[in-house]
Each structure stands twice: as structure tokens, then as C-alpha cells.
């Protein structure tokens, strides 16, 4: 359970890093595509398939990873925290989930205000830090009743 918690917490951080990578992959590819003479119009944005350039898939991956996979992992992390017997574990898992929910909301409303998009960018780094810390503190946080020596022996 403890290692599951640690894995899941670091997984959230890793997936958030992937989110940043997907987005820049897509935006860079888009810039190159336009430079080559193509044009992005409302119709292209609304089309069933995205335009065919290297990086285009980044937009879709960012959306699916962000709205489905990361929230699912954060939710499982919270459930695992109920059983992992890590002091402060549920609280940190709750914080991770909270920042994930905030990030999803900012991402959705970012489509209506670029300033909200700005906050989406900052919150990504906050979420990354919180998830990383939630994972790292599992190593040093000791369950009630054990001494640090017993805890490390158990591992």
C-alpha cells in the first residue's frame, strides 16, 4: 500500500510533466505548420480530425491525459491513502486531488480567457510539486507506533 501510494503520487507528477511536454509539442508543431504556409481557421479547429502535422496529436493527448487519466490516478491515490497508513497520507492525497480538480477547471475556462490559461500554467507547477512531495515524504513519514528504525527495517 505504501509503495502503491508512492508510485501513484510520482505518477501524477510524471503525467503532469507529460502534459507540459504534449502541449509544447503541439504548439511548436502548429507554428511550424503555419510557417509552411498553412492556415488555422475556426473551421480547422472544429474539424473532425486535427490537421496533419508533427505534434498535432499533442492537443488530443493533453486533453485526454488531463481530463481522464490524471484525475483517475489522483482519485485512486486518495483511495489508496485510506489504507496505506501513512501519517498525513490522505491529507496530501486530498491536496493532490484538489489541485488536479483546480487544474482541470482552469484548463476548461482557459478556453474562454487567456489569463485563466496563464494560471493553468502556474498551477501545473504547483501540482507537480505537491504530487512529488506527497511521494517523497512517504520515505520519511513513520506510521504511529513504529520507530524510524523499525519503519526502515520493514522496507
Amino acid at each position, binding site marked *: 500500500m505504501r509503495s502503491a501510494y508512492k508510485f501513484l503520487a510520482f505518477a501524477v507528477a510524471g503525467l503532469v510533466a507529460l502534459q507540459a511536454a504534449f502541449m509544447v509539442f503541439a504548439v511548436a508543431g502548429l507554428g511550424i505548420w503555419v510557417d509552411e504556409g498553412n492556415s488555422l481557421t475556426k473551421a480547422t479547429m*472544429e474539424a473532425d480530425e486535427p490537421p496533419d502535422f508533427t505534434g498535432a496529436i499533442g492537443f488530443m493527448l493533453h486533453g485526454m491525459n488531463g481530463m481522464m487519466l490524471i484525475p483517475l490516478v489522483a482519485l485512486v491515490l486518495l*483511495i489508496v491513502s485510506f489504507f496505506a497508513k501513512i501519517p498525513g497520507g490522505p491529507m496530501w492525497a486530498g491536496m493532490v486531488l484538489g489541485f488536479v480538480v483546480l487544474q482541470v477547471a482552469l484548463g476548461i475556462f482557459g478556453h474562454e480567457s487567456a489569463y485563466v490559461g496563464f494560471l493553468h500554467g502556474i498551477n501545473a507547477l504547483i501540482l507537480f510539486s505537491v504530487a512529488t512531495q506527497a511521494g517523497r515524504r512517504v520515505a520519511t513519514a513513520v506510521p504511529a507506533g513504529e520507530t524510524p528504525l523499525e519503519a526502515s527495517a520493514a522496507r
Partner: protein
Amino acid sequence: MVGVVLTLAIVVPLGAMWWNSLLPSSYSVMTMGYPDYGGGPRPAGHDPAADGHDMAGMGHASSGISVTSLDTPKGLRPDVVVDLTTSEGTVELASGKTVEGYTINGTSPGPTIEATVGQVVEVRLHNEDVEGGVALHWHGVDVPNAQDGVAGVTQDAVKPGQDHVYRWVAPHAGTFWYHSHQMSNEQVSGGLLGGIVIRPATPEPGVLDQLAVSHLYDSIATLNGDTGHQSVPARPGQRVRVRVVNTDNGPSKAWASVPFKVVATDGYDVVDPTDVTGKGIGIPGGGRADVEITVPEDGTAARVEVLGGVGFDFGPSGAKAPSVTEPEEQVDLLEYGSPADAGIDVSHFDRNFEYSIGRKPGFINGRPGLWWSVNGHLYPDMPMAMVREGDVVKFTISSHTGDVHPMHLHGHHALVLSRNGKAATGSPWWFDSLDVQKGETFEVAFVADNPGIWMDHCHNLKHAAQGMVTHLMYEGVTTPYELGSDSGNEPE
């Protein structure tokens, strides 16, 4: 123990929501949602449509009129016969580039269907190899319900190797289009479409007609399958009517290098259109705008441009047309043209429906997400607008989401009464496809004069495929057709 309780508190409600959202393998449009009577009379006693829940399972309705009988009178001799063969594979654009898609008689767009008002049009559809099946819908042509071409509602999808014959009387002169209404998001995007031009009995002489079917193939903008600006020979002083059809999901726009008039929208003529300069005309997804220009007397060509860097240059051969940048402003149809009697008595409505578009988190067929909602409901629990033949109906359509939604009602044209509280003061603004932006509220009216079960959905087909689909139901009308994975019918 606390952990178990908390886990159950999270997992059980989510699981229940997931379970409840799963669509049955076969279901009827008659039970797809909850009836909304719009403040009007409910049917006396037994309404077969509202009890469709039991009926659909029996596979037939014992009372009520079936959509199959709401049809063009039998035995009419067709004046215009068109054979259309649909196929899946590669589309070759006029430029030579090939893309994956669908063709009709080997091309995309498919052949244009042309007729005169009142003529009987017969379309013989043969589905050669489109694996998912096809159905043809006549967008903007208010045909009898049985001819509407919606898989799962008015017919079963036409499977590979099968045939279907459509027959309808051309009801109104104007510009329309036809497209698949089986897996429409994918098939229309892939090019399973074509134009329809219905001419009046006595067309205006001397006007050059040009159809401009605008479509994106793999993000390549085209008009009639061709990219860039196409030259069309025309005499100086010649009047040209450009019929622009927007077949894509997002809004399009047309403008010109010379003053132009918007002579019709969605197949209905504009009364007293005035010259437009420095502005463009917006065209919602699925909508049409007929734009009239006069070729300059000085021997140069006039350019009519459509969003995406495509257009037509009209002038003597060799004449050059100036390039023209996209104007920022658009013609406001609420004030354009002169008012005239629209033929609807809007002093009293038999039904008043709210249609409020929003977004709501939840599950649709087991998939979690933030989905389109109508009046707070997610697909398939959508409001079903119930009307009786002859009702004067008002819809108040509002959008609270960031995306623009081109709202399309089958089988009828509606009149815009007001936008954001401002009454319409121009030519009667009849539409079958209307763009609703964030924060906008439109009041629209129509007469329920075409009995049947009619889809009423966002024509951004991606949104429709995501559940933004409702329908209008006439009292007493039933359908034997079904939707769901067992049926093979998937209209979106």
C-alpha cells in the same frame, strides 16, 4: 474501517452514475429523454409516444401514426431522377491531392441535385461499400418525415450493397445541400455530401448562377472540391449569384471585392437586400448564404471570397481580381433588408420551449467527461419537445458555453423574433441553421406544419456526436426504427 467507508462513498456514487449512463443496445428515439410539453396541452389519455417505453420493446406501436406513412404521395411520376452511389476510400481533389474520405459517384462533393419548385425529385441511393452504412438527409429541404434520411428515426441505415429510393417534391426555391445522416460526424467530414439547387418556376433572366460548396478535406479548404481562387468567365456588368454552402462544423464567412447583396439565407429570399461594403456575411455550420455581385464594367474581375483562402473570380477571361482581406464586421441579419409579413401570427404561442445549452460533468454511455447539456440534462435524457400539428411554437435558445453552436432543426424553417431582447427589424430572418454564441439568447418561432419526429441538434457534428442532440415530436407519431449498437443505426 473508515477507509472502507470513504472508499465506498466515492466509488459507489460514481459507479452508479457510470452504470446509469450506459445506453441500451437498442432503444427508440421515442423514449430518448423526457417529454416537454412547452406549457401546451398534453395528449388526452393514452399517448403512444409517451408510452413508447413499452411499445419500443414490442417492436411496433399499436396506435399512432408511423413516420413511414408521413410520406410523399405515392404514384407521382418523378421529374428529376438522380442515381447516387456512395463509396468509401480516397477523395481526389481537383488539385490532384488525395485524402481519405467518402465519394458519391466517384467524387466529393457529390453531384449537385437540381430541380424546379414543385418538381418530383427521385434519388436512387446505392451504397457500394461504405461499411458503416449510409442515409441521405436533405439539409434545409422541408420534406415529409419518411424522406428525412435520419438513420434510426426515419429509416434504417443503408448497408453496403443495399439500395434506398427517396422521393420528395421540391418545396421551396433556394440553396440547400444533402449529406449522410448515419455516423454523420465522420462521414460528412469525410465528404459524403453534395449541393442542392431548387430554382423558382420563373428564374430571373441573365443572372449567372454559381454553386460554392465549402468543405475542409483534412484541413484543406475547398470550394466544390477545388482549392484557391477559381476563375469563372463572366461579362462586365453581369449579375452573378454565388450560392455558398457551409458544410463544416465551424462558422464560415463570405465577402467580396465589390459591393454585394445577401439575396437569400438558408434557402429563403431576403426582402429588399441592400449593398454591403466592408463587411462579410457569416454562415453557420450547415447554413447557406446566396450572395449577388455585379461584374465591374471596367473589365476587371470581381472576387467572392470564402473563409479559408478560397473563392471565385468573375470576369472576362484573363481579367484579374483584386485580393481582398477578410472584413472584421459582419452583416447583421437582424436589421438587414426590409420588414415584411412573415406569415406567422406571433401574437400567441401554443408552445413555449426553453433550450438552454450548457456543460455538465457526468457520464455518457460509460465515458466520464464534461459534456454538453440541454436544460441541464445530458444525452440521452434530453428534453423532447412535444407539439401538435398546427401549433405555433416558440423556442428560446440560449448558450452558456464558450463554443459557438449552429443549431439545426429538421423539417422546418424558423423565424428569428429577437436576439438578446432586441427585436428583428429587417427582412424576415428565416433559418434552418442558426449560430448561437456564448451569452446569446434567441427567440424563434415556427408553425408545426410538418408532422413527424424531427432531430433538433447542433450542426457542429462533433458536438452532436458528443450528445448535443434533441428532437421535436408531433403528438401521436411513432417510429418503428431503433438506435443503439444492435440496430446498426448511428445518426451522429
